């Protein structure tokens, strides 16, 4: 399989943070036991939050809907296990505020809802498949949590010819997708077939970074008979970002301000594929996912199959607890993840990883003046000028920030990672983007 690893593709820009994968890469996925309480927020995806459709005291089964989708760009939320609804109230959400959630006390029996039925994808047409995906609450599991059925519904004037599967997992420390590709290959491939049927295309390419040679080898071998290609990619962050992935695999650049459908591509995370397979074949909604609980602060980092709504505290306990006081709790990877107020937050559909840093793992931070070294410009995968946008943001020069294409920033964090002055570039650019959007709304 050396040939697959020799023909590495890539994109311009980016950088190589230390991998950090060794903490949990070799660990097979373990099933996380049920906690005492599951707190399931109603806002777990892009689009309108779901609306609760159960009341306190209701008995639910695993997979029963507990909240309805609101509109087209929305999905329903389901109970992650059988039990009793003990509260429908605001609870601390990973976004840092108290948002509506349904709290379930598991009854320990873990019974699936009988009304859920699987089907053979051959018997269903594209529209029926998409409806089932929405009903199953399938959203992008790479972290963006965009409702999948919407992504699979491009308008007629945007024909799709390529399906790209994101097995890159370029964020340091995270290994959930890697393990999934090794252990659940069949489910992933099944999901790919279903996606190809919905889109009505034949070409599917899985992008995998070269630091996962075992996954590349396995998927290339198995994929050959199923007309699923595997493209090995140079190890560089942010190869897993949608735009960079499309550029590396197809050579096409998604025009500024548009979506991948503009260049005839749909991208899906490999975890989403596995969830799609379950949703159609077995009728199972999205109630659990693989999460990497990792980082130098954990006694025993692991890749766990976690029920949606399990608190981070419970997950950390499953990993043997911490070997030092936590200084930062990050949901996601270290480059784009969100810091948390406490471990009493639930894992949600978009939680790909939980990272704990102690004081000694934190980088030095003393923002000094910009020395115009230009490193941020050379690493930006979108080829922006982060220091210029940040300077405009600091001076509230919003029009100039828009002139520097601030809205094109994918907030990958490369610029801030490399900045010798430790300037909070991504934060400043986010400020500029919010100000530009606010300005657009008022004019």
């Amino acid at each position, binding site marked *: 399989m050396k040939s697959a690893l020799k023909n590495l593709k890539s994109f311009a820009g980016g950088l190589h943070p230390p991998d950090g994968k060794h903490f949990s890469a070799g660990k097979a996925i373990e099933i996380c036991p049920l906690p005492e309480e599951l707190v399931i927020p109603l806002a777990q995806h892009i689009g309108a939050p779901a609306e609760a459709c159960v009341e306190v005291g209701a008995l639910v089964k695993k997979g029963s809907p507990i909240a309805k989708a609101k509109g087209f760009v929305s999905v329903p939320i389901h109970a992650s296990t059988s039990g009793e609804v003990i509260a429908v109230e605001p609870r601390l959400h990973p*976004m*840092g*505020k108290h948002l509506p959630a349904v709290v379930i006390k598991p009854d320990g029996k873990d019974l699936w809802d009988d009304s859920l039925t699987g089907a053979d994808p051959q018997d269903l047409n594209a529209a029926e498949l998409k409806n089932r995906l929405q009903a199953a609450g399938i959203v992008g599991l790479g972290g963006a949590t965009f409702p999948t059925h919407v992504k699979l519904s491009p308008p007629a004037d945007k024909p799709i010819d390529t399906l790209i599967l994101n097995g890159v997992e370029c964020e340091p420390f995270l290994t959930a997708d890697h393990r999934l590709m090794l252990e659940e290959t069949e489910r992933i491939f099944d999901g790919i077939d279903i996606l190809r049927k919905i889109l009505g295309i034949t070409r599917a390419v899985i992008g995998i970074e070269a630091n996962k040679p075992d996954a590349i080898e396995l998927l290339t071998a198995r994929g050959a008979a199923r007309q699923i290609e595997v493209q090995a990619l140079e190890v560089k962050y942010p190869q897993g970002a949608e735009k960079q992935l499309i550029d590396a695999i197809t050579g096409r650049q998604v025009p500024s301000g548009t979506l991948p459908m503009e260049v005839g591509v749909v991208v899906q995370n490999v975890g989403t594929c596995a969830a799609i397979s379950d949703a159609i074949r077995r009728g199972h909604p999205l109630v659990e996912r693989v999460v990497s609980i990792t980082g130098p602060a954990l006694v025993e980092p692991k890749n766990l199959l976690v029920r949606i709504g399990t608190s981070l505290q419970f997950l950390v306990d499953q990993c043997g607890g911490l070997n030092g006081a936590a200084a930062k709790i990050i949901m996601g990877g270290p480059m784009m993840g969100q*810091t948390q*107020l406490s471990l009493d937050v639930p894992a949600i559909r978009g939680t790909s990883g939980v990272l704990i840093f102690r004081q000694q793992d934190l980088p030095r*931070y003393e923002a000094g003046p910009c020395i115009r070294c230009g490193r941020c410009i050379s690493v930006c995968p979108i080829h922006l000028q982060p220091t210029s946008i940040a300077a405009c943001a*600091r001076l509230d020069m919003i029009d100039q920030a828009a002139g520097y294409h601030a809205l094109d920033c994918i907030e990958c964090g490369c610029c801030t990672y490399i900045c010798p002055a430790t300037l*909070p570039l991504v*934060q*400043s650019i*986010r*400020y500029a983007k*919010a100000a530009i959007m606010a300005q657009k709304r008022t004019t």
Partner: protein
Amino acid sequence: MFASILTLGGIGLFAAVALGVAAKKFAVEIDPRELAVLDALPGANCGACGMPGCAGYAKAIVDGSMAPNLCTPGGSEAIEKIAQIMGVEAQSAEPQVAVVCCQGDNQKATLKYRYLGLYDCNAAQKIADGPKTCPGGCLGLGSCVRACPFDAIEITAAGLAVINRDKCTGCQKCVAQCPRSVIHMTPRLAETHVLCNSTDKGAQVRKYCQVGCIACQICKKNAPEAYQIENFLARVDYSHAAAAAAVAEKCPTKCIRDFSHGYPDGSSYGVPTPEKLRGEAV
């Protein structure tokens, strides 16, 4: 040498004549009142009136498209002068100054988390609704200081914004910047204010702030017309400002401040100029 004197002198003379002719011939017709109004305005270009600069506002006053009493930094003296120039009645609005309704600096109020990042209140507010536990409290990172064109705000060493009542002109730029809406406009002549912005119940407030309003109603009981309690937060009714001042000391958490006794702890502003002197100093 003679030739060079003649040449240069001649060029100078020619240029002077040419400039004089051009000044007369290409003169822009400005209503002389516009220049007088511009002179009466403070010239800070702060934008409080709604125009980006004083020149624009002067023009708008003279051509009648804007009212002459919108300049809060200029105060009653500017409004009177402008009214005189335009030949209309002076209708000054009651002068207002901004007040930061919070005394919970880092030593008196708790933090939800330790914030790392841009030293800006709006940026910090985006991260889990800001580092201060109190949802309405001042974050003390200085967005208001940067917005103020009159250098009237400071951040104390313990992280609290304080507005100088003598320097504040009421332009409201700080109010627009504050993500927690903790800055409120108050009549300049009223010196007693409830410096709290939290609408949480008293028991909750006690947990995160030593000087927050717990809605115990003591102020209202002692001066019923001067205080209103709404949403677990007391507010001074400024039409009875004198009565409010009398009971300020009775507040158990000391969240009511009479500014004639001084600014909040840690402020370098001392004591505001007493009202009777202020009229003369201007």
